[in-house]
């Protein structure tokens, strides 16, 4: 059983999960290729790295549900990408346990190399990494997950 605080080191053989908002178009199953490198472009909020969740503590649906809860957009849907930690480290992306900025959820981690400051100073290196991740390292895509509020309400009413 995993430790409750989930602060154990992130192992190479672990899977991490990253959500992608459906409306961003970063993942579009009707397009070829389906995934854009922009999904792994650090944005202004990625100060200490890009947020991911450890699959040993969260399911893909959990990750989408958390994204929906924190976005205040209940109509939003999410895809969830699975990545192996060892694959990311092999191309130079560090993965570390990090806290989830006080939201109290277990299993948070960060792709620490993919942060805002590094992107600003080493755009070419980060661009090449993002390309490799989207082209070679995504193991699977689940979803889209969404409409959680309605589903949770249905579950409550049928209980």
């Amino acid at each position, binding site marked *: 059983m995993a430790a409750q605080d989930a602060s154990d080191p992130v192992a190479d053989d672990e899977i991490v999960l990253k959500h992608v908002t459906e*409306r*961003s*178009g970063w993942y579009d199953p009707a397009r070829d290729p389906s995934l854009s*490198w*922009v999904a792994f472009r650090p*944005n*202004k909020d990625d100060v200490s790295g890009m947020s991911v969740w450890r699959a040993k503590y969260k399911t893909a649906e959990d990750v989408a549900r958390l994204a929906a809860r924190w976005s205040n957009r209940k109509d939003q849907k999410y895809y969830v990408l699975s990545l192996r930690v060892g694959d990311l480290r092999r191309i130079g992306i560090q993965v570390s346990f990090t806290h989830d900025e006080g939201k109290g959820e277990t299993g948070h981690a960060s792709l620490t190399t993919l942060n805002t400051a590094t992107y600003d100073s080493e755009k070419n290196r980060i661009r090449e990494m993002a390309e490799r991740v989207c082209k070679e390292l995504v193991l699977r895509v689940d979803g889209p997950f969404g409409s959680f509020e309605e589903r949770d309400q249905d579950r409550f009413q049928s209980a």
Partner: protein
Amino acid sequence: MRDPSSTLIPYEDVNEEPNETADALVSTEARQLSRHREAWRQEIDRKLIEWGRDPSQFEDVDLIPPTQEAIRVASRIALQMMDCGAAPPTAVVPDGDGGIVIERRTPTTVESIEVTREGAAEMVRLLDGRVADRRAFSVGNG
């Protein structure tokens, strides 16, 4: 203004069968050009114009909607590319910071035109996964 087509992936369609006569070649090229124009037109109408009408659709904890300036510049670039017969984009997506990325791919080349929230445009070309070129992309004022 620099002709955008001079720095971008030339259009080509490997599915087209070669034709014997000059008329047939012209006809094939015209059809291809028409398809490319239609693809650009769809990106402009269905995405860029729609984003300008309702940027709130992107509001999320980790996604800043494209700014009006980014949409204006990206639309101008798309129109230029369409007019010069460039191959259509494989993706037009928000960058998450208020900007827009126009992406075109071949099996070995990826070309991204990145428009920032302030409306500055940069072209980045990857060849076999490595950045081969990065330069400011000039946008006409017309």
